[in-house]
């Protein structure tokens, strides 16, 4: 049974479509905003890029995947490319105590030069480990622990809290 006349029904349909479109736009904007924050971007670099590739290297080192220097070097290349981007994502006010939860300690902004040096160290370490990859699994494992993990640890020791706060 028709509750309203055909013209009202038309406008209702239009309004509904408009409302849905506006809603979808708003949601996209919200999602985009959340994904766009520097905090989320830098977290994504570490978790999606670095962690995933560390996993690849871990698999090769532990013998879970057949050793292939090319795969190792590819993973290390991706890891090594992260710091240059990463270091740009630390504007003032985005540390612990800012709007978003983060593990970035205030020491970063007190020692920005040192922080950037650690970023460069990570790229260099990835390159060193990539060179070792050509010498076989044991050389890769040794360099992974000493050079790559060493550079992770050095920066994390000073500048990263254990949990985002």
């Amino acid at each position: 049974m028709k509750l309203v006349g055909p013209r009202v029904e038309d406008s209702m349909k239009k309004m509904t479509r408009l409302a849905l479109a506006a809603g979808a736009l708003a949601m996209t904007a919200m999602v985009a905003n959340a994904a766009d924050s520097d905090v989320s971007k830098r977290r994504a670099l570490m978790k999606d890029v670095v962690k995933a590739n560390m996993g690849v290297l871990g698999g090769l080192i532990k013998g879970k995947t057949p050793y292939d220097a090319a795969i190792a070097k590819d993973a290390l290349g991706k890891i090594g490319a992260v710091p240059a981007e990463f270091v740009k994502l630390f504007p003032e006010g985005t540390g612990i105590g800012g709007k978003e939860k983060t593990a970035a300690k205030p020491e970063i902004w007190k020692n920005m030069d040192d922080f950037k040096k650690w970023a460069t160290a990570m790229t260099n370490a990835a390159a060193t480990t990539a060179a070792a990859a050509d010498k076989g699994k044991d050389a890769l494992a040794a360099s992974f622990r000493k050079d790559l993990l060493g550079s992770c640890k050095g920066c994390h020791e000073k500048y990263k809290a254990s949990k985002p706060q």
Partner: protein
Amino acid sequence: MRRLIKAGLILGVIGLGVFYVLTMPDTIDAAALPKHTADVKNGETMFYAGGCASCHAAPPAGKCEDPAAPDKFNLAGGHCLKTPFGTFYVPNISPDKEDGIGAWSDADFVNAMAKGVAPDGSHYYPAFPYTSYQRMRYEDLIDLKAFIDTLKPVKSQVPDHDLPLPFKLRRGLGLWKLLYLDGEQLKPDPKQSAAINRGAYLVEGPGHCGECHTPRDLLGGLKRDKNMAGGPSPEGGDIIPNITPHDDGIGDWSAEDIVEALTSGATPSFDVLGGTMTKVQENMAKLSDEDRQAIAAYLLALPPIPGPEVEKKATGS
């Protein structure tokens, strides 16, 4: 009125007297120490397990807050520890005879480590984790002293601690110790394996893991019913993780994962142990593989406890 004042004065004097008696330092006599020829190699193990350098090694010049120590064996002190109770300046424990502990007897060293009492009879602040070191065997303490005596004597004048009242009153620590220093050494449990017993000793004694990983009450004492369940960092600015085998902690870690983390710093999720744990891990890496496995066995045998007790928010970490 005069009677009231008199009564008040008498009560005051009695009160001071009681305070004095309660806060008298409890120490061990040299005669009570076992006859033991020092084993310097074991002392070195205790040095790493105990993490002495992590606090006592000299920081980079002019940067007392910097956790990096250019030379782990330069025990000149000077590192500043900022805590909710004030700032502590870590003393010189190099074997220098004036500025360090070079003139100390074995009994002096044992009293410092196990009783928190200095050779002059004053109390140490529990920023020095004697509440854990008290679990250690006297033989191990004697060995540790012998190892420290082989290191370089270094001259340094470290500032006094910068603490507000009432924490400034060292004598008051005598009361704190009545509550929190039970004086019990860790005895092996015959029902457990040798590995778990060794792990328990390393974790609860020299490792002093609970000093960070166990939450504290308002007086700064460890909440031992939440052993190793994590909490706010005693130095502020961070949250120390739960290392019991609970879902909140290391419930999905294998013994191999724990050993790997202690050996290289890599966690199962390909993160690295960071913050203050970096130095701990570097010390753990110097222990024998057997000792690291013992630590893993003990941690996995702990009662699983939820924690840390901080507001849990929904961001992935």
